[in-house]
């Protein structure tokens, strides 16, 4: 058992940290306030190799391990988790293609993404089907060699900028995955949602009205969709946990810097246990969340089942991020409540980690489901 990073991983972390300090954090306020999509930052991320890390080498990608992706993402999300989501969101829709796509699909949809800056989006959630994916109402009707998709997908990250979508739809009540080019007739993109946080991340509603998709764009067999969608989460949840860890790290750094600099009652804020213990707890919880994340990522890289560990990491990291953001605001006092300081943004951004890619309650259900199949916990 080793707890240290390899030289290559250390180099990757340093590179991501420099990118974060030069590109992500300095633009965080700008994109948070404007709500625009951070295309220039994404372009730089693409140039520096931080986008599309999972694409196999055969299709021009770098085929980075999930652990390496997590390490880089934690750094990027320390600068801004909204921009981090914009950079990382491709992975969610790419993985179904990597996991279940054939050579033709991978060549057609993944290869171009390694050549120029492009985006893709994962269309599973619907207004009436969030955590309960099986409730989706979107249908795909087979007509000749094509499928005709009808339905509404909601909270689609990167939906406005995507060149293609992974869409989960029911074919005769069997959930099936499709790749749908974004310029297909019948796709109606809604306006950007005004969310609580992560304003840099583009989230929209997409309506599919008689969208014709050729059979060769179907992923796997009819009925494989649910399995593909769930397997994707085993891959992406450690990344989500890393994003939450990034928020915790930012909260810790901001709180620590402030506590060391601010004076009250003629003493530095950090000299009071009421404040310093918060920082000590934050650091400890961050380390715990990190190791859970790294374990979940490493298990996936080893080809082992990581469902429980990924759920644990995602749930715990999200809880720690939310708690840390609240405590960071508390350390900053009134300054933690003003939008001219970076703390309040962390609070707004952290909340979504307890909700997307499976709410915290769903993560606990996954953990319990695994426990129910266990006779003894060792």
């Amino acid at each position, binding site marked *: 058992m080793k707890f240290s990073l390899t030289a290559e991983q250390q180099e990757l972390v340093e590179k991501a940290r420099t990118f974060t300090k030069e590109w992500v954090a300095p633009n965080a306020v700008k994109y948070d306030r404007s709500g625009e999509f951070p295309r220039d930052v994404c372009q730089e991320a693409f140039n520096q190799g931080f986008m599309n890390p999972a694409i196999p080498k055969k299709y021009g990608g770098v085929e980075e391990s999930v652990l390496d992706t997590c390490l880089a993402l934690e750094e990027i999300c320390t600068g801004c988790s909204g921009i981090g989501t914009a950079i990382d969101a491709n992975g969610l829709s790419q993985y179904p293609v990597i996991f279940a796509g054939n050579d033709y699909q991978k060549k057609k949809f993944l290869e171009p993404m390694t050549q120029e800056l492009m985006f893709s989006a994962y269309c599973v959630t619907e207004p009436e089907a969030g955590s309960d994916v099986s409730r989706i109402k979107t249908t795909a009707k087979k007509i000749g060699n094509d499928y005709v998709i009808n339905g509404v997908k909601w909270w689609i990250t990167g939906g406005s900028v995507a060149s293609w979508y992974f869409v989960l739809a029911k074919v005769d009540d069997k959930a099936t995955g499709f790749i749908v080019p974004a310029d297909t007739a019948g796709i109606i993109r809604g306006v950007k949602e005004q969310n609580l946080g992560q304003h840099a991340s583009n989230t929209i509603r997409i309506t599919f009205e008689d969208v014709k998709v050729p059979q060769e764009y179907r992923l796997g067999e009819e009925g494989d969709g649910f399995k593909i969608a769930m397997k994707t989460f085993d891959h992406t949840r450690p990344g989500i946990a890393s994003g939450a860890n990034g928020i915790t790290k930012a909260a810790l*750094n901001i709180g620590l*810097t402030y506590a060391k600099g601010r004076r009250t009652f003629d003493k530095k804020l950090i000299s009071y246990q009421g404040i310093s213990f918060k920082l000590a707890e934050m650091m400890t919880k961050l380390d715990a969340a990190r190791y859970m994340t790294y374990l979940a990522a490493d298990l996936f890289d080893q080809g082992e089942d990581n469902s429980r560990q990924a759920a644990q990491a995602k749930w715990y990291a999200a809880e720690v991020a939310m708690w840390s953001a609240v405590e960071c605001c508390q350390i900053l006092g009134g300054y933690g409540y003003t939008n001219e300081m*970076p703390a309040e943004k962390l609070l707004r951004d952290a909340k979504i980690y307890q909700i997307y890619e499976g709410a915290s309650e769903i993560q606990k259900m996954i953990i319990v489901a695994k426990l129910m199949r266990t006779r003894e916990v060792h």
Partner: protein
Amino acid sequence: MLSDIMKLVDKFVNIFKKRLYGRTFFCPVCHLELSCHDTDENECMVCPLCGVVIELHETYGHFVPIVNDVEINRVQPKARLHPLATHLPLGLFPFALLGAFYLLIISVYTKTLGTGISAFPFASSIPVIDNLIFLFLLIAIIASALTFLTGVIDWKKRYGGRSYRVITLKIILSGLFLAVGLGTLALHLVVFEAGMIGFDSLISVLATIGYFGLFCAAMFILATLGHVGGYLVFGK
């Protein structure tokens, strides 16, 4: 169309601002945009608007301004000539420009169509308008020189002579306005004295374009100067 123009202007302003200000942050008390280069060797600065003493820290690319003190009794020059003087050029210059455009329209119209000047409103007042333009320009330039000097006194007294990028910008723009304004005044004398206003010959075309080019540039600088000055005094 208008939003595209605004976006383009915004882009240029941001490029310029980035070069002069570097990275910026907002005063957590009065929300004034400040440059990270405004801090002293101890990473401290006094907000020029609200007077809080800010210790600027950077962590992971995030600026964390920490307020540990405030300058309450800030020295105010007794005779506040700067704000008085600054409004003279701001008030007179636009009227001088409007008058010059009016004379240009009359000149082009009469020279092209051969119509008599009497067809225009205020025709009998044209020499007066010409003199007024000259007078407005002259007063504006003298007042802007006075604004510059009183501004320097204000900076030394009220702002303790501390280095602020926003004040540097004001000094640069003031110098620029004086130079361009004097150029406009000189060209006004030449162009109107020689009757070169209009587009009837190559020399008059060049003289008119040069004259109005300088005039508009001076107006733009003055408007920017007023905006920056107002921002420094009143904030957002």
